[in-house]
C-alpha cells in the first residue's frame, strides 16, 4: 500500500499493533522460507498465512505468490504411508513364513488382487523371492527387508516441489506414478515474501516487553482490574473483514412499501381483492368490448369454471351500456353475452378493484373518496428481459363530484414527484374505460429521454353510471410499477426480479426513499 509507505510509521505504534500470532513469527521472518517459518513458529498453515497477510498490510513485508507443481500423496499413497506399501506387507509375511502358498500369502497380507500382483512383481524384480510350484519362497536375506526402499523414503518426504526432486527421487516418482493413485502432481500456490525496509527494522526490535499487552477484554480482566497500567494491543482498523449479511425484506416489497407510503401520505385508502376475477369485473364493468383482443386466451390467463355475477341490477346496466349504450352513448352495438362475463381469469390490471370499489362506495355514498391498489397482475406472455407473465401495478382513483382533468394532472405530478420523477409529460392515449385518456411519460435524467410509465384518465360514463346510477367523475391512474423498481435497483432484466438468487438478494442495496 503506497500511501502507508509515504507516512513515516511510528515504530512503537506498529509494534503495539502486532497480534500474538504476528509476534510469534516476526522473530523468524529473516529465515525467509515459509516451511521453515512454520516449523519455527509452530503455527498452522492457515494462521501463518493470515499473519503474513496482516504483516503485509502493515507494510512489513511484501507477499508474492506463484503456481508450482508439487508432488503429493494420492488416496492410496496416504494409506500406504500409514500401513506400508503392498510389497512391504507381503514381504513381511514371507519373511515370517519363509515359504508359503500364493493363496495363503494373499490372505495373510490382506491385499487386494491388484495390490498382490503388484507386490509380487516388485519383490521378484528385486530378486527377493521366487515362485516355485505355486509357493512363494524367500530368496534374499531377511535383513534386506529391514531397510527402507527408495520408494518408501520418497513417500515419506512428500509433499515436495517437483522441480526440487533429486534424480533417485524422480526415479521413485516415475515408478510410483505408474501405479494406481499413489502419487500425483498438484498445482499449488506457493507463497513467498520479502521483508521491506520497515520489516528489516522491525525484526531488530526487542518484542519481549509486549508479552504484557492485553489481547482481548474478558470478564475476568474487568473484574480483576489487572488491566490498569497495561496497554491494549492496537488493531489495524483498516483491514478488511469477512462479509456478513442480514435478514431483510425482498427488494420488490421494499419498493412496494414505499409506494404505499406515498399513497397513504396523499390520503388514499388501500383496496385489496382477489387475483382471480370474473370477465365481468376485469373487462365488462370497464366497458371493454367482448370482442376486444385482450379478452382472448392469447393475452389473458383463463381458468376453467364459472364466476358468479353481482346481484342488484348492475349486470343489466352494464349489458345495456355495451349493447345499446346509456346516457346518450351508442355503446358497442353488438350483443353482450353473460357467458363471457362469467369467465374466470387472472386479473390483467388492478383497475378491476377500482370499479368494484365504485360499487361499494356507491352503496354507502362515501365521497369524495380516494383509493389505491398495489399488486400483482397477469398476462399470458412468454418471458424475456422486458416481459413476464406476472407484473406489479399500482393504481389510484379519486371519486369526487368536482373532479376534473386538471386535477388529474395535479395528482399525477405530485405522485410521480414523490416517486422520484421531477418532470412528467402527458399525451393523448386510448383506453376503453377512460375518456379523456392519457399516457404518462417521465423524463429519464440519465438517458435524457421520455420513458413511458403508464396510463391515466377519467372513467367513462359507461363505467360510472352502472355503478353509481349517475355519472360522478372518477380520476384514475395506473402506472406499471416494475419499471420504477427496475430503475431504482438497477435491474436490467425483468426476470431477475423473481429469480431469488440468494447471493444477489443478500447484496442488494435497500430502498432508500
Amino acid at each position, binding site marked *: 500500500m503506497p500511501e502507508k509507505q509515504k507516512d513515516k510509521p511510528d515504530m512503537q505504534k506498529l509494534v503495539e499493533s502486532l497480534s500474538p500470532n504476528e509476534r510469534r513469527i516476526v522473530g523468524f521472518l529473516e529465515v525467509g522460507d515459509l516451511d521453515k517459518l512454520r516449523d519455527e513458529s509452530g503455527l498452522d498453515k492457515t494462521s501463518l498465512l493470515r499473519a503474513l497477510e496482516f504483516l503485509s498490510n502493515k507494510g512489513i513485508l511484501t507477499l508474492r505468490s506463484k503456481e508450482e507443481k508439487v508432488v503429493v500423496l494420492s488416496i492410496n499413497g496416504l494409506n500406504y504411508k500409514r500401513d506400508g506399501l503392498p510389497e512391504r506387507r507381503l514381504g513381511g509375511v514371507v519373511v515370517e513364513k519363509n515359504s508359503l502358498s500364493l493363496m495363503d500369502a494373499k490372505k495373510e497380507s490382506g491385499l487386494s488382487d491388484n495390490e498382490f500382483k503388484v507386490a509380487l512383481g516388485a519383490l521378484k524384480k528385486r530378486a527377493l523371492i521366487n515362485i516355485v510350484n505355486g509357493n512363494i519362497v524367500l530368496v534374499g536375506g531377511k535383513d534386506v527387508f529391514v531397510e527402507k526402499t527408495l520408494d518408501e523414503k520418497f513417500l515419506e518426504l512428500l509433499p515436495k516441489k517437483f522441480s526440487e526432486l533429486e534424480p533417485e527421487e524422480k526415479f521413485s516418482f516415475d515408478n510410483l506414478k505408474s501405479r494406481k493413485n499413489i502419487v500425483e502432481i498438484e498445482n499449488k500456490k506457493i507463497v513467498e515474501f520479502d521483508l521491506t525496509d520497515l520489516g528489516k527494522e522491525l525484526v531488530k526490535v526487542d518484542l519481549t516487553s509486549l508479552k504484557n499487552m492485553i489481547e482481548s477484554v474478558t470478564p475476568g480482566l474487568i473484574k480483576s482490574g489487572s488491566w490498569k497500567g497495561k496497554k491494549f494491543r492496537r488493531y489495524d482498523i483498516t483491514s478488511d473483514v469477512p462479509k456478513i449479511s442480514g435478514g431483510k425484506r425482498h427488494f420488490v416489497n421494499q419498493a412496494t412499501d414505499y409506494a404505499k407510503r406515498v399513497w397513504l401520505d396523499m390520503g388514499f385508502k388501500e383496496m385489496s381483492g382477489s387475483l382471480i376475477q370474473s370477465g365481468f369485473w376485469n373487462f365488462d364493468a370497464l366497458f371493454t368490448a367482448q370482442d376486444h383482443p385482450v379478452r382472448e386466451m392469447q393475452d389473458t390467463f383463463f381458468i*376453467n369454471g364459472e364466476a358468479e355475477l353481482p346481484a342488484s341490477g348492475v349486470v343489466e346496466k352494464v349489458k345495456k351500456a355495451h349493447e345499446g349504450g346509456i346516457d346518450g352513448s351508442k355503446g358497442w352495438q353488438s350483443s353482450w353475452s353473460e357467458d363471457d362475463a362469467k369467465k374466470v381469469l387472472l386479473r390483467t390490471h388492478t383497475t378491476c378493484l377500482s370499479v368494484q370499489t365504485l360499487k361499494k362506495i356507491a352503496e354507502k355514498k362515501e365521497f369524495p373518496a380516494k383509493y389505491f391498489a398495489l399488486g400483482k397482475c397477469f398476462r399470458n406472455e412468454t418471458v424475456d428481459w422486458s416481459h413476464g407473465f406476472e407484473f406489479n401495478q399500482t393504481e389510484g382513483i379519486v371519486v369526487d363530484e368536482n373532479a376534473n382533468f386538471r386535477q388529474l394532472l395535479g395528482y399525477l405530478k405530485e405522485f410521480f414527484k414523490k416517486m422520484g420523477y421531477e418532470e412528467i409529460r402527458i399525451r*393523448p392515449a386510448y383506453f376503453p374505460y377512460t375518456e379523456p385518456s392519457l399516457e404518462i411519460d417521465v423524463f429519464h435524467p440519465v438517458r435524457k429521454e421520455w420513458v413511458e410509465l403508464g396510463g391515466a384518465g*377519467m372513467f367513462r360514463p359507461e363505467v360510472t353510471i352502472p355503478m353509481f346510477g349517475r355519472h360522478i367523475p372518477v380520476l384514475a391512474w395506473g402506472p406499471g410499477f416494475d419499471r420504477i423498481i427496475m430503475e431504482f435497483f438497477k435491474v436490467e432484466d425483468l426476470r431477475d426480479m423473481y429469480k431469488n438468487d440468494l447471493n444477489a438478494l443478500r447484496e442488494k442495496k435497500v430502498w432508500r426513499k
Partner: protein
Amino acid sequence: MTIITFDRKELEKKIGKIDEKMEERISMFGTVVEDLTEDEVSVEVFPNRPDLLSFGGFVRGLLGFFGKGKGLKNYNVNKPLENYNVVIDKSVKSVRPFTACAIVKNLKLDDARIKEMIDIQEKLHGSYGRNRKKLAIGIYPLEEIKLPIKFLARKPEEIKFQPLEFPRAINGRQILSQHPAGREYGDLLKGAEVFPIFEDANGEILSMPPIINSEKTGKVGFETKDVFIECSGFNLDYLKKTLNMIVCALADMGGEIYEMEIVDKRKWVSPDLSSDKMEFSLDDLNKTLGLELSVKEVKGYLGKMGIGYGEGVALVPCYRTDILHEIDLSEEVAIAYGYENFEAEIPEISTIGCEDKVAVLKRRVDEILAGLGLLEVSSYHLSTKDVQFKKICKKGFLDEVIEVLDSKTENNILRTSLFANSMKILSENSDASYPQKIFELGKVFGKCEGGSGGESGDGSQLQRPIPHPPTRIGGVEIATSGVGGIVEKERLCISLCGEGMNFTELKQGLDYLMRMLGVEYSLEEVENESFIVGRCGSVVVGSKGEEGVGEKRVVGVMGEVGLSVLKNNKIKMPVVSLELDLSCFVE
C-alpha cells in the same frame, strides 16, 4: 395498438419538415412517433382511430390539428349511374347478412397508392375488423366487372373460381384447405353449410368473403381507374363506417365517390357520408376539463379535430367511429387545446389514508423474521406440476391442480404451496453460502370444496398436508373466496437449509413469531409425504368461537424435509420447513 409507417418525404410534403418540435406535436395529437429515420416515419395509432390508418386520413387529421384544416370536411358523392346496384340474395342472410358498397372512379394509381390501398384494407381488417371476424373488405377493378352485383351464398362445392395468387380454379372447400388465406381465416366459415360470394352480372365470382378475391376480377393494378368496394359482415353500422373510411381515403387520393343502390328487404343507398349529430353541453365539457371555454373557442377546437359545432350540437364526420358519447367530444377538445397547456391543480379535499389490514400484518411478520436473520424471497404465482407436487413427493394431487389455459410458458398451474416453491429456490442456490434461511409471504390457491362459495374447513383438514382453513375470521378477509370456486389464501413459508438446521431450530423461530404476535399454538404430530416421519407436526391454534368456546384449528405444517424431496430437488443440505396460514394471526 397499430404502428403505421409512412414515407418521410411524402409526409413532409404535406405537413412540413419533421424536426424535434414537429415530432413532439405529432405525439400530442395522440399518435406518438415510435421511430424516425431518414426515409420513414412510424407512428402508433390507437385502436379507437382506424380513420388515421391511411396516409390520407393521417394527413387530414394532423393538418386539422395544426390549424391548417377547414373544420368539418364534406366529401362529394355522386348519384348512382345505371346498374350501380348490389342485390342481396336471401341465401346469404344466414351466413353473412350485410354488405355496404360503393364505387370510386378516376383514380390515378401508382405503386405507392396501390400499396396504400392494400395497407388500409389490411390494417382495417386487423384492428377494427378484429382479424376479419367482424368484417371483411373487398376492392375490385370495375373494368373487369359487369354490373349489377349479386351477394349470395352457395354450397362450397358449387363455388369454383381461381383465387388470388393461386394457379388454378378450385372450389370453396378446397380454398379453405389449399389457399394460404383459406387456411388462415377458414375458421370464420366453420360449420357453415353455404359460403357467401359476390358475383357479377356475367355470373363471374368476384370473391368469397371473408377469405379471398378472385384472381381474374379481384385484383387492382396500375391500369385500374375505377373500383368497386364492398364491406361485408354482421353489423351494418360497422360496415358503413368502414366503407366511409375507405372511400374518404380514396377521395383524398383524388377519386370520385359514386353511390350504389343496395337491394335488400328494402332498398337503401350506400355510402352514407352524412355527419352524425351529437348533443354537446358546454357546461359538461368545462366541468370535465376544469376550463371555462366559450362557444367560439369550443367551435375552434372541435374544428381543429375535423368536427363541426353549432347550437349545442356537434357534427361528427362520417369516418369517425370512436365518438360514442359526448365525453369523447370533450377529449377531442382537450387534445386540440393541447394536453401540455393544461394547468395542474390539486383540490383541497380531505381524505384519510388507510392501509389494508392484511398488508399491515404481513409487514409485521416480515419485520420479525428479518430480525431473526431470514431473507425474504418472492416467487411466481404460476408454477408447474413438477415443482408443486411431484418434486415434493405429493401423491394423488390431480384434484388440487388448478390449470390456466393455453399458457405460453411451462408455468401452467396456480401455486398451491409456498413450501414447494422454497424447495425450488434452495435447489437453484446450491452455490450460495450456507446456512440459507429464507421465507416468503404470499397467496396460494385452492379449490373450494363443493364448488363455488365460501368456507372449506372441515374435519378432513387434519389429514391434509397443507390445511385449508376457513376463509373469514372475525370479519377480516384474510383469504378471498369464491371466484370460480377458487379460494386465495395468505400464507407464510419458512425454510432453513444448511448443516445443523433441524426441527428445534425452526420451532424456536415459530415460537418467537407466535409469542411476538400473541398467538397460542401447539404442535400435533402428523404424517406428511414431504417430511420425515416422526419429525413433522401440524400447527394448531385454538380459536375462540362465537360463544367463547375454544375450537381447535389446523393452520399449518412444519417438519424436517424428507430426503426424497431433497434428492428430487438436488438439495445437499438438511432442510426444515414451515408453511403457515396467516389466518392464525387475525383476531
